[in-house]
């Protein structure tokens, strides 16, 4: 315990200066993320910035007042560390989207709890200036939505809940959501108007927002999850910034807004890569293909050509250029290292191998890059969608490993398809296609894929890792 107001480091000047240093470090650290070479350092700089902010906050006069304050702060930090550190150390790279979702959720939860305390504590109307209350309420509503929404997203990605949309019948979902939103905002306005018990009212607002968070994310299909996670990320950021305004804390404002901006940019990028509009996603109902096109796709369907590892090995070995299109299925089977082996074996035979990376390959933006980086695949072999698409006509064999929707030609050819218009990897333009797949089950979006019935496609069924290893040893034996 330090006596308040006596030490230089406790003056407002010092703390304000420390905050300026802190947010400068956060911004500078983020600029490091613009290139992989500076990124590690950038992340560390940002972490230092955060540490400076925490220390400055703990030096603020009054923070340690109260008999048990010190113990409570230590307990909180200790619990957080005890949960956060092992979770971050143990998570598999395939599980990153869930991890981001749950971390995002707890952030939103913290915002909501802080808002709750603020209102519980300052019953008396007029204790807070109105403008501060507005921001605090924004934090309460958005933080609560973010917490519950992220938890649902986590549960869906972790497959605790089914990935398909869970929704009320017909248009009632939209009506219920709108009603909940209206209730939350109206309650906020009534609370601001004064005379009611703020402590009780804020609980109501938090509850309604919580329900809204659940109702908004439950109907969203698994395929749209990357967009939802970045959207909720933006929400949590904005609610943190709002809390910052309410508490007059510059670091919180700056940090929150950076996250808000980043989440917004990523949400738009993702939505564009899937040819979906954000409002349409939030309105829900995509991803389950309840009204899946029974027409063209199934007519074309029927004959699927299965092949053997040996045939695949021969085809690959005599190709000039092979493109590998990996999807989340590859990661689930933990096949990325096996794929890297295959790539090396083929290169040893003089075959040019490239990887085609769809912007939404995996379950969040850039996820596939992380998974391949984990398997030591050099980045210069990775090609983004726009760079690789013109190369497919010059490609002898395209190997699709655990990818489905991002290679689905229905997105180009079938105006009736739920994914029509989504930019895809045009693998069907290469001379031949080999699809590695566990079974004929449909992809994460639950949509049938005409690629599998294409005469130049052959399918190699089985566990991706086992299949790839088998092909690799056949290639080496040739």
């Amino acid at each position, binding site marked *: 315990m330090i006596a308040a107001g006596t030490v230089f480091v406790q003056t407002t000047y010092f703390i304000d200066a420390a905050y300026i240093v802190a947010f400068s470090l956060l*911004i500078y650290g983020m*600029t490091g993320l*613009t*290139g*992989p*070479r500076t*990124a*590690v350092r950038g*992340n*560390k700089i*940002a972490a230092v910035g*955060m540490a400076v*902010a925490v220390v400055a*906050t703990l030096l603020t006069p009054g*923070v340690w007042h*109260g008999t048990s304050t010190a113990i*409570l702060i230590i307990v*909180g930090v200790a619990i*957080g*560390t005890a949960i*956060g550190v092992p979770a*971050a150390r143990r998570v598999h790279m395939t599980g*990153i989207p869930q*991890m*981001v979702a749950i*971390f995002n959720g*707890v*952030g939103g939860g*913290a915002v909501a*709890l*802080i808002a709750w*305390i603020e209102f*519980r*504590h300052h019953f008396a109307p007029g204790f807070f*200036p109105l403008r501060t209350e507005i921001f605090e309420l924004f934090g309460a509503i958005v933080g609560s939505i973010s917490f519950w929404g992220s938890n649902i997203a986590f549960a869906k990605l972790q497959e605790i809940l089914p990935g398909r949309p869970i929704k009320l019948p017909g248009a009632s979902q939209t009506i219920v959501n709108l009603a909940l939103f209206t209730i939350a905002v109206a309650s906020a306005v009534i609370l601001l108007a004064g005379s009611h018990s703020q402590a009780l009212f804020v609980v109501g607002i938090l509850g309604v927002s919580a329900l809204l968070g659940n109702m908004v994310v439950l109907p969203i299909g698994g395929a749209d999850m990357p967009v939802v996670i970045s959207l909720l990320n933006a929400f949590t950021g904005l609610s943190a*910034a709002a*809390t*910052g*305004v309410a*508490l007059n*804390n510059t*670091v*919180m*404002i*700056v940090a929150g*807004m950076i996250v*808000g901006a*980043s*989440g917004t*940019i*990523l949400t738009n990028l993702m939505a564009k890569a899937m040819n979906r509009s954000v409002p349409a996603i939030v309105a829900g109902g995509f991803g389950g293909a309840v009204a899946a096109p029974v027409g063209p796709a199934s007519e074309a369907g029927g004959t699927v050509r299965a092949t053997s590892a040996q045939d695949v090995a021969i085809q690959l070995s005599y190709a000039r250029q092979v493109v590998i299109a990996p999807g989340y299925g590859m990661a689930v089977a933990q096949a990325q290292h096996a794929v890297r082996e295959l790539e090396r074996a083929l290169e040893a035979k003089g075959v040019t191998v490239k990887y085609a990376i769809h912007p939404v390959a995996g379950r*969040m933006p*850039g996820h596939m890059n*992380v998974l391949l*980086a984990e398997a*030591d695949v*050099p*980045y*210069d072999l990775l090609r*983004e969608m726009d760079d690789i698409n013109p190369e497919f006509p010059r490609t002898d064999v395209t190997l699709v490993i655990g990818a489905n929707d991002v290679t689905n030609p229905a997105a180009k050819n079938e105006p009736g398809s739920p994914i029509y218009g989504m930019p895809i990897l045009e693998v069907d333009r290469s001379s031949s296609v080999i699809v590695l797949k566990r079974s004929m089950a449909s992809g994460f979006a639950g949509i049938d894929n005409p690629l599998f019935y294409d005469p130049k496609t052959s399918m190699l069924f089985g566990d991706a890792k086992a299949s790839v290893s088998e092909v690799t040893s056949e290639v080496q034996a040739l």
Partner: protein
Amino acid sequence: MGNTFVIDLSVLVLAGFVGYAVISKVPNTLHTPLMSGTNAIHGVVVLGGLLLMHIASGWFEQVLLVIAVAFGTINVIGGFLVTDRMLEMFKTKERVGGVESEETAAALEEDAK
């Protein structure tokens, strides 16, 4: 007080533009680490929990705030650690050394556009 509020709002707006400018430059390759890194950053709400702890009266408020601080800490520490783990994986690729790593770097600069 009014003054502070206007300053806070200015900071809010300016930070939004700064964030937009900085984040727009991040290449697709790094979008997953970016998202998890910014995730760690919004753990900054832990400051709110720390600042308010002393006003907590009664066990109920104390429990709520301890949870808030714990949540914020999970967010910050977990977020930065997991981002670091991911980024280290990207870094290992550079041990290839010499010409190849130069090429890689060039390819990445290209990417960054």
